[in-house]
């Protein structure tokens, strides 16, 4: 089994359509806390969309609705024309933290989804080699436990695991936010190279405007809670992109536009060159966490 090499952006599969999506957490006292309010979003197969918004705006919740982990209160989420009714093998999910099983080796973490799906060992081993190559994982470390790996390597393992079932859509929830700035930049560019080969649709939640611009075709800005789409900004940078692209005047303009929609009072200013916004993790308040 090899990883499909397809023409990016022209794929028919992996199209996500969200229509009038509402979501609310119920508090312990029984009150409803609206988190998403009528989110409409259409993502073509093979596209890359970055979701950006203030803390607590429901970005992660939106990602979990697309992943089928949370059911919307109203509206619908569709993948290639069929409603997303629950976790789906066509969707791969990378969490903010690597979320590896500490008692398994890196290899066994990567093939965990295949094991759950009942793949025989021989096929799992074969697929493991392809996946390690795809995410640039040194084959020598696959026998190691997660605790013996660096943060970056752990997230590579998590990425390989998300790609194990050859998903049409890859959802990433601030995947590189725990990494240092330089490593993060490198991972963003590696993600783009991976996308060119694996050709999945990518939806990435991020806090960093430069990261959003570097990676995405479109940057979707969400309002403070309850989250709505307040802007959908095209990033007009040619691909393949490099880190030098972030220095263009167009990037500053796009960055300013995104900031304006985020309600940043300093929106008139320039984007810091290569500036990386490292903000605290966005989470629903503890009492709503499921």
């Amino acid at each position, binding site marked *: 089994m090899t990883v499909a090499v397809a023409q990016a952006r022209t794929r028919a599969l992996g199209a996500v359509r969200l229509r009038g999506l509402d979501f609310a957490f119920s508090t312990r006292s029984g009150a409803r806390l609206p988190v998403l309010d009528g989110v409409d979003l259409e993502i073509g197969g093979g596209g890359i969309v970055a979701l950006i918004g203030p803390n607590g705006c429901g970005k992660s919740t939106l990602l979990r609705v697309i*992943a*089928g*982990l949370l059911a919307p209160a109203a509206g619908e989420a569709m993948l290639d024309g069929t409603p997303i009714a*629950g*976790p789906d*093998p066509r969707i791969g*999910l990378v*969490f903010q*933290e690597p*979320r590896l*099983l*500490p*008692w398994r080796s890196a290899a066994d973490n990567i093939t*965990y*989804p295949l*094991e*759950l*799906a009942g793949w025989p060992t021989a096929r799992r081993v074969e697929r493991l080699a392809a996946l390690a190559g795809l995410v640039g994982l040194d084959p020598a470390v696959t026998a190691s*436990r997660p*605790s013996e790996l660096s943060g970056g390597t752990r997230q590579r393992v998590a990425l390989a695991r998300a790609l194990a079932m050859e998903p049409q859509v890859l959802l990433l929830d601030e995947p590189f936010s725990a990494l240092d700035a330089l490593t993060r930049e490198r991972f963003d560019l590696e993600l783009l190279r991976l996308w060119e080969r694996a050709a999945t649709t990518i939806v990435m939640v991020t806090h960093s405007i430069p990261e959003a611009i570097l990676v995405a075709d479109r940057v979707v800005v969400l309002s403070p809670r309850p989250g709505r789409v307040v802007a959908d900004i095209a990033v007009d940078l040619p691909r393949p992109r490099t880190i030098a692209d972030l220095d263009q005047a167009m990037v500053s303009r796009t960055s300013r536009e995104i900031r304006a929609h985020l309600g940043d009072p300093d929106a008139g200013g320039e984007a810091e060159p290569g500036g990386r916004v490292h903000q605290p993790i966005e989470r629903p308040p503890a009492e709503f*966490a*499921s």
Partner: protein
Amino acid sequence: MSRGAWLSVGAVFAVFLLAWKGIVVVTGLRPFILPPPETVASRFVGAWTDGTIAPHLATTLVEVALGFAVGAGLALVVGYALARSAVVERLLSPYLVAAQATPILALAPLFALWFGSGLLGKVVICALIVFFPVAVATMVGIRSVDARLLELGRSLRATRRQILTTLEIPAALPNILGGMRVGVTLAVVGAIVGEWAGADRGLGVLINLARGSLFDTPLMFATLLTIALVGIALYLVVVAIERRFVGVR
């Protein structure tokens, strides 16, 4: 263990033996009160070679093994239910705590009355005494399974059974084995107490015989030594299982 570690273990044991011998020499206690270590050692070897201890040991080991298996097995199921259901916890925990708080010594004669002086009564006592620590450890272990890992399992469409076998059990295993370390040593206590209350064979019976009918204090010490060694051996078995299955994380 390294050579140095073994040496220090041996040194501490030598100090223990010397202190024992010293007490005997200084106080002049007679052997039927406190026999010196060399008397106990020779009685220990003698009782083993003439076949005095072996049949009693075999009986006790069977009681411990069966009692532990039954008690720990039930404890795993109940501990899981306690962890995952608030209703089960509310309804059952008073009885569990009460059963644990009642001295096993007080229950042993009752069980002897109900189940007779054979194997069954001892298995029940062992199971009862093993149950509580293993059930509590299982409950704590299952509750402490990282909810984020469970979400991962859900996102990968793991079945209930797969969540149990690939996430919950491995994550709770260090806790569960910690409870079993306690449980396995308590199982030995349970078996001896049960035999004390009425039995015709077992290490507890042998202690009674040595003390009462035979008036053989060195044999009593040799039996106590055997019981202690059984406890240590069983404990080490659990530790070895832990090394094998939990290892470095």
